[in-house]
């Protein structure tokens, strides 16, 4: 009996801890949503990321254009279309991957429509499982395709512009002022502060829409 009570208590404590964690996460998320600047801590220092201003945006566009030109001139870099052709010769069919992704997408759609009209618990559970399995399948294929094309001129240009943006928008709190953290892009690229860089890109993804074609 005592053992049962103990187990019950442990379970209740776990539940309470989970609820507290969720509450904390909600508060943290509300703080991120309330403003177009996101503050965070790394080590004992306070940092923030903010949206680039118009001048910085022009600077980013400039950097993107220069990188694009540099890669286009370099024969060791290929466009996505060229990579797709190269892979085809080696027996990897990216077009087929895309068709498969589309097929899974359509299947998910059909299953979702069935789920919408289903009311019995067992049926709902089964359809939800089916959708999750299909989503996993779709995700794996998408990742595989993205990885294969990650060295393309388009993706490399995007990664470079994203890194440059991240470097521009990161600020550190100095007393009551916000100052740029890295003195130049080179220092940013050489930084080995994994915690800071990880957090920077995590919050970057919550701040800025990335448009890559």
């Amino acid at each position, binding site marked *: 009996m005592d053992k049962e009570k103990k187990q019950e208590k442990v379970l209740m404590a776990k539940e309470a801890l989970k609820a507290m964690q*969720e509450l904390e*996460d*909600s508060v943290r*998320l*509300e703080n*991120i*949503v*309330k*403003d*177009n600047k*996101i503050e965070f801590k790394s080590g004992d220092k306070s940092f923030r990321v903010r*949206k680039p201003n118009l001048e910085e945006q022009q600077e980013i566009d400039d950097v993107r254009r220069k990188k694009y030109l540099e890669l286009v001139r370099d024969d060791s870099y290929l466009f996505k279309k060229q990579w797709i052709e190269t892979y085809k010769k080696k027996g990897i069919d990216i077009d087929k991957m895309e068709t498969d992704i589309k097929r899974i997408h359509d299947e998910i*759609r059909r299953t*979702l*429509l069935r*789920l*919408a*009209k289903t*009311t019995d618990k067992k049926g*709902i559970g089964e359809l*939800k499982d089916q*959708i*999750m399995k299909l989503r996993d399948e779709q995700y794996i294929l998408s990742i595989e395709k993205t990885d294969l094309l990650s060295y393309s001129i388009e993706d490399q240009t995007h990664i470079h512009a994203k890194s440059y943006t991240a470097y521009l928008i990161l600020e550190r709190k100095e007393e009551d002022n916000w100052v740029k953290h890295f003195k130049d892009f080179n220092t940013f690229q050489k930084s080995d502060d994994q915690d800071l860089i990880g957090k920077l890109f995590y919050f970057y*993804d*919550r*701040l*800025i*829409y990335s448009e890559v074609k």
Partner: protein
Amino acid sequence: MNFKLLQKLARSNKWQILYNRAKELGTLRLFKNDMDLTKIQIWMLYFLEMYSSLYTDLAMNEDFISEEVIQDDLRCEAYLLYRKEKNKKENKKKFRDKDEKITPNNIPGVRFMRKN
């Protein structure tokens, strides 16, 4: 980006009241900034409107919507897709009916096509 928590926040009483009052009054601000919204703020607005419309459907006793569905992200997605398809079908039917009404005595309507 993981939307689970953002969706939970958007369907919460607090944010639904704030959002609906902000829509009615037009002066209430949801965020500190009025413009230059971040990606997460845009998604938050999307989810706020989505759940607001779902609660409206629930109040109107629409088919296949319940509190249980609203609390379940995947079932919400399913319901929204179903509603979209249903509206598409109804709109098509409405346009067909309208076409039939403006062509009296079963004289076929004339459609002007743009020349390529």
